[in-house]
């Protein structure tokens, strides 16, 4: 066989094929790491019990509680959890005990959002295959791991066999030339990418992000970009590992040590795609020309530069006119309206997109010595217990509290609004999360997705604001 130039996906995929794909059958793909949480796993464990199956590799399975967990003490300073959510948490505990799976339970040191704790603990490593019953599993692609979300039926498949039936996805390269300007963040970049390729532009594809803008990013920033790949419909996002990646992984709890590290590093350095490798599609974006982005509609592709005006349904093509009009009606926005200065009710800083230490630092930098507007409620929800501890060690919580924000425990919180942290009907939020779908942050709630900088600046102004206009931004 003639050696053919291979992409990063080709290499990771090829290393995990247990059985090749044929015309009649999908391939069998091995899964290195299976992350589990309370919401999408109970029915999968039930399947195992019904069929008398065990978990094949508990040593490759890690569970956490994040989606429906409370992030604040309720009345009487006790944890208040709705009865059905509490039952689901107890079920996860029982399932992990019965099947021998490590669980980072509520209150434990390793607890946090599943896509924050994986990288943080060194579980996420370059070249791995990683799955979870959660669409934002694409986050881990920042390490050059093939990571994607699956449904509960497939969670059962992985629990029982450590494998999935898969057809190889197509590849799309998103090449990001130039460097982001000051005040423009990874969140702005991914919102711009989704606005460009559309919420189904990546369907059937694994997107590999490349170019100068990506190389200049920290791992936290790369995770923000890969996290929202699913919002463009992509199967997964990928970034070739480099020294930034290796430095991040080195020394973490589950990272290889000693000679095993050297061996791992040798393998990881061979992962980036060959120069001559081809993609099924390529998109070029001038990252250096981007401004802070914000969404105005009810899907993440409906985003504009923060100083632009809300589009007019009358001026878009017929195929998108109705959808745009419906979105604007839900958001109670007028065509041509500027978003800057739009009064808001809530600011949410958190979620697997933007709840890591660097996100909190960026927001705290703007909030230091300032107060949030009296009309605004701001929730700051760290992505993990570790992020919370680290933030407190450098005094970030004091800055948030002094500014008038709420400092919470780790969890998904108002990103998915399952735990009581939610918008009231009609409220406007600037949110650093990933979805502005109707009702996503609470029934009738209206979401503007933006970066931690925009969130902090808007909290101070009490209205949508451009962080670049703050003196020391």
């Amino acid at each position, binding site marked *: 066989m003639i050696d053919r130039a291979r992409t990063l996906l080709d290499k990771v995929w090829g290393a995990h094929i*247990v059985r090749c794909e044929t015309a009649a*059958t999908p391939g069998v793909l091995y899964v290195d790491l299976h992350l589990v949480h309370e919401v999408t796993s109970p029915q999968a464990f039930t399947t195992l019990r019904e069929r008398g199956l065990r978990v094949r590799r508990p040593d*490759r399975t890690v569970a956490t509680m994040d989606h429906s967990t409370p992030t604040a003490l309720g009345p009487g300073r006790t944890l208040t959890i709705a009865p059905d959510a509490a039952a689901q948490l107890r079920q996860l505990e029982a399932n992990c005990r019965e099947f021998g799976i490590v669980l980072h339970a509520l209150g434990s040191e390793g607890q946090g959002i599943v896509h924050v704790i994986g990288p943080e603990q060194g579980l996420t490593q370059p070249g791995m295959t990683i799955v979870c019953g*959660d669409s934002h599993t694409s986050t881990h692609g920042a390490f050059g791991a093939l990571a994607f979300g699956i449904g509960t039926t497939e969670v059962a498949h992985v629990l029982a066999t450590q494998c999935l039936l898969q057809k190889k996805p197509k590849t799309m390269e998103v090449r990001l030339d130039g460097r982001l300007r000051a005040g423009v963040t990874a969140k702005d970049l991914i919102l711009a990418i989704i606005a460009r390729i559309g919420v189904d532009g990546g369907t059937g594809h694994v997107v590999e992000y490349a170019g100068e803008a990506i190389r200049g990013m920290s791992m936290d920033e790369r995770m923000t970009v890969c996290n929202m790949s699913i919002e463009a419909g992509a199967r997964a996002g990928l970034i070739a590992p480099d020294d930034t990646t290796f430095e991040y992984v080195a020394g973490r709890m589950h990272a290889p040590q000693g000679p095993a590290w050297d061996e791992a590093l040798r393998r990881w350095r061979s992962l980036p795609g060959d120069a001559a490798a081809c993609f099924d599609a390529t998109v070029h974006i001038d990252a250096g020309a981007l401004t802070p982005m914000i969404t105005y509609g009810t899907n993440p592709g409906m985003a504009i530069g923060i100083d632009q005006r809300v589009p007019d349904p009358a001026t878009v093509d017929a195929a998108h006119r109705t*959808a745009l009009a419906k979105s604007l009606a839900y958001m109670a926005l007028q065509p041509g309206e500027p978003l800057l200065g739009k009064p808001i009710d809530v600011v949410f800083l958190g979620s697997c997109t933007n709840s890591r230490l660097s996100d909190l630092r960026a927001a705290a930098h703007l909030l230091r010595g300032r107060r949030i507007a009296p009309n605004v409620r701001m929730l700051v929800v760290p992505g993990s217990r570790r992020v919370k501890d680290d933030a407190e060690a450098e005094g970030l919580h004091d800055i948030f509290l002094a500014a008038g924000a709420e400092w919470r425990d780790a969890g998904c919180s108002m990103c998915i609004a399952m735990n009581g942290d939610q918008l009231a009907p009609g409220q406007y939020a600037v949110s650093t999360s990933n*979805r502005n*779908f109707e009702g996503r942050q609470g029934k009738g709630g209206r979401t503007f997705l933006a970066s931690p900088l925009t969130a902090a600046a808007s909290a101070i102004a009490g209205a949508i604001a451009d962080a670049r206009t703050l003196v020391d931004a």
Partner: protein
Amino acid sequence: MTPIGTFVSHAVVLDRDDIDTDQIIPARFLTTTGRSRLGEAVFADWRYDETGALRSDFPLNQSLRDAAILIAGRNFGCGSSREHAVWALQGYGLRAIISTKFADIFRTNALGNGLLPISLDDDAFHVVLGLCQRDPETQLEVSLSAQTLTTPAGDRFEFPIDPFAKHCLLHGTDALGYLLAAEDDITRYEETPAMYTEART
């Protein structure tokens, strides 16, 4: 899983693109540990008003309650991976969704539960959509074995489906059995020294 044969049904229409799984089943209904009783909550925020009463202007409430087919716009099932969306649609009584494009995870979840995702090209979609909008009682015939959707006038539209998924759906078998039968290959893979990463220690 019950095998999917040929069936005939009228369709309910949601002529809207990018219907995400948060709309199909809002997150507050995900605290269940089972699969049943989600049908009542399907499209909850579109289907019920503030008092919990059914909205008369919502298509799923206007349709005869036994519609087994939903016709919906492009990129159906985008967003969250929640399989509860499929369970909720099935709980309502749906057996097939017709669209021009499905989100990847939703498609896999649907196939794994015997909910048939029928992808039509734009032209065929608009013919079928128009028929069902003009006459909500239009009977469509779905044949999985022939991979066709047939109108009362006899117009027949082919739709693609993954051959392995088709086999599973026609015979009512699930993919887990196939994976379990790959045991020897999986063990061999796990014993290969070249295996990419070591297990967590």
